[in-house]
């Protein structure tokens, strides 16, 4: 069991996923058909033996609270453990004040009462597998004050543009946390994941609060790079950063490839989610499905290629779905052709027959919409 509690942090004001985020926070986004994004950080924590997890919510709490419930489906001990949902109400009316530091200050009592010496802070908007217990051991063995997780990429010019990057020295010491301006292709993308002592965390939150009401945790940690021993640890395997609409689409589509998916899913590292008790998926005589990921509860009579189909979708005969992410409960009508789209939950594409976006610029259909 890890000697730490967990904090699942919300996305800051630098991040906005066009379309989808107006309905719910990124953590509540449907991901790969049957999951929600937040299932990954929470499962990482419970698999690492972290039993006390605080989930911070900045806005639109309904869908996330409904999904998290008591947290029993995440394999948290129902007596010893706790999934604590903390919704910040202050600063709702002025978005500039609605940041993570304000949320931590508002809930400081809850943080102080937790009886673990270390804290692991992970974002609710990034998808990856990570053993936080071994990360904590690395942190303790290194003697560092703060350990930050990063992922090295070679496409930082065109992707990860809402992410921060770590500027590292040769000893993996962090010189600075900076926004990714897209001016170099090789970058160490900061995975917004921190390990530190609880006492230091509280100290930094209080300091940030005094320095500026608009400061985020990343801002204050970056300020401390000269003073504290802050080190980076590289993450390997699948990394999906859901920080704008294109990256949501890309993070899903990358997992259509089963070899990539094997870098995320592991029998011994289950990803938990809330069950929906849907039946298996039914395929009919006219179905043509290739290179796709399909969730339970679907009825498939049409063609599906290179796509992700969420729970309980209906693909009618003659429908063609290509290169698309279809969220749960959507219906694709007879002879409707969808290509390169994200179709939000329960949308019904019935009358408009050609719904095609150009490659590289995926389109978006709103939740509950009828076309």
């Amino acid at each position: 069991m890890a000697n730490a509690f967990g904090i699942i942090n919300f996305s800051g004001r630098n991040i906005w996923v066009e379309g989808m985020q107006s309905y719910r926070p990124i953590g509540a986004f449907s991901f790969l058909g049957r999951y929600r994004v937040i299932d990954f950080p929470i499962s990482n924590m419970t698999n690492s033996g972290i039993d006390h997890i605080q989930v911070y919510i900045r806005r639109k709490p309904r869908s996330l609270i409904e999904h998290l419930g008591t947290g029993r489906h995440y394999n948290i001990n129902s007596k010893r453990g706790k999934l604590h949902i903390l919704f910040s109400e202050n600063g709702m009316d002025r978005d500039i004040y609605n940041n993570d530091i304000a949320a931590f200050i508002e809930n400081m009592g809850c943080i102080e009462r937790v009886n673990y010496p270390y804290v692991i802070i992970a974002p609710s908007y990034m998808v990856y597998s990570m053993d936080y217990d071994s990360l904590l051991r690395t942190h303790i063995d290194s003697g560092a004050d703060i350990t930050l997780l990063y992922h090295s990429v070679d496409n930082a010019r065109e992707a990860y543009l809402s992410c921060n990057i770590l500027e590292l020295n040769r000893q993996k010491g962090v010189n600075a946390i900076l926004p990714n301006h897209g001016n170099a292709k090789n970058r160490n993308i900061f995975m917004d994941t921190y390990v530190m002592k609880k006492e230091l965390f509280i100290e930094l939150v209080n300091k940030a609060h005094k320095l500026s009401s608009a400061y985020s945790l990343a801002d204050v940690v970056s300020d401390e790079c000269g003073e504290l021993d802050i080190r980076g640890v590289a993450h390997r395997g699948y990394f999906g950063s859901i920080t704008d609409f294109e990256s949501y689409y890309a993070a899903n589509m990358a997992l259509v490839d089963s070899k990539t998916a094997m870098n995320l899913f592991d029998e011994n590292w289950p990803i938990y989610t809330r069950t929906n008790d849907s039946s298996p998926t039914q395929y009919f005589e006219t179905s043509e499905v290739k290179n796709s990921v399909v969730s339970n509860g679907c009825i498939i009579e049409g063609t599906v290629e290179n796509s992700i189909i969420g729970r309980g979708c209906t693909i009618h005969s003659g429908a063609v779905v290509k290169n698309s992410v279809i969220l749960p409960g959507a219906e694709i009508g007879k002879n409707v052709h969808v290509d390169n789209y994200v179709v939000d939950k329960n949308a019904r594409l019935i009358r408009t027959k050609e719904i095609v976006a150009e490659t590289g610029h995926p389109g978006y259909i709103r939740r509950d919409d009828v076309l």
Partner: protein
Amino acid sequence: MKQNNMLAMILAGGRGTRLHELTKKVAKPAVSYGGKYRIIDFPLSNCANSGIDVVGVLTQYESILLNSYVAAGRRWGLDAKDSGVYVLPPREKADANLDVYRGTADAISQNIDFIDSYSPDYLLILSGDHIYKMDYSEMLAHHKACGADATIAVIEVPLKEASRFGIMNANETGRIVEFEEKPKEPKSNLASMGIYIFDWKLLRKMLMADIKNPDSNHDFGKDIIPEMLRDGRSLYTYKFQGYWKDVGTIDSLWEANMDLLDKNNALDLSDNSWKIYTEDVTTPPHYIGPNADIKRAFITQGCILDGEVKNSVLFTNAKVMTGAKVYDSVLMPGAVVEEGAVVHRAIIADGVKIGKNAVVGDPNSEHIELISKRVKGDE
């Protein structure tokens, strides 16, 4: 118990010998069905959906898996404060020796103390190895409306098959006048589904007498129901319409799975108003590769498919590798059909591997082949 004051007891001790290797280590109610379910999910989900809060499950044969499976009552939502699923294997008692359940009625008799602790007005007796969806609250309403001492759910079967069942002969009001177990010349086609509602006080009295009767088989069909008729008690039928299957053999288990492939099939597992609940597994959705060809199939999460799958039902984590072909078959959880292998008209048991280029089953066979051991292929 508050809602309808009816407690359910599920008879789940059945061995299911005609399912051969599938029931070698698990009791029949725990056999997998329909891609993600076990057979006992059906009566348990029916109970939950009918507003029954307390369910006793009477287990006996190879019960380790079954006991741990049903004990997690929350799978069916049966875990509220006044609710629960209780596993009831035979046990030693202060005033009696440890004894197996000698018959269906004896299984209830040996648990009178359990039932009494809830003091129900009505007792619902169910079988743990039937596949169907039924609202027991409607059956109870019928029982009350008839003012019956006992109500037996019946289903119409083809008359030529009626001699395989317990047949109820009823008058025009539905009152049972005669019960015949597997009659050679059936007078009616109303077969007992093994689902009974009893007035608990009356049944309790009869069971107490039955325990002491040395000539009794301690069986509902053979002893209790005939005794009630002899006593002139009012027994009524409750006609069930819908899908109902007792999967006693490999062929009928296969058939019941194949029934799910039809559009608008009568069982309709996708009906959100009457869901069948089951174990929640943590696998990703199913993956369909670039070479796959899927037609008429029922496929659940965790499967990885890159071959041809036609007219088949695939359970959790089944794999069909590139170039493999699966026709008219059932792949149980974790079954693997390796590259180039071909499967016809077969049930591949849990976790069994069909090796590269191996061929099993026969498209023209009369019976379905059960493959319960690894089939070696080209290595």
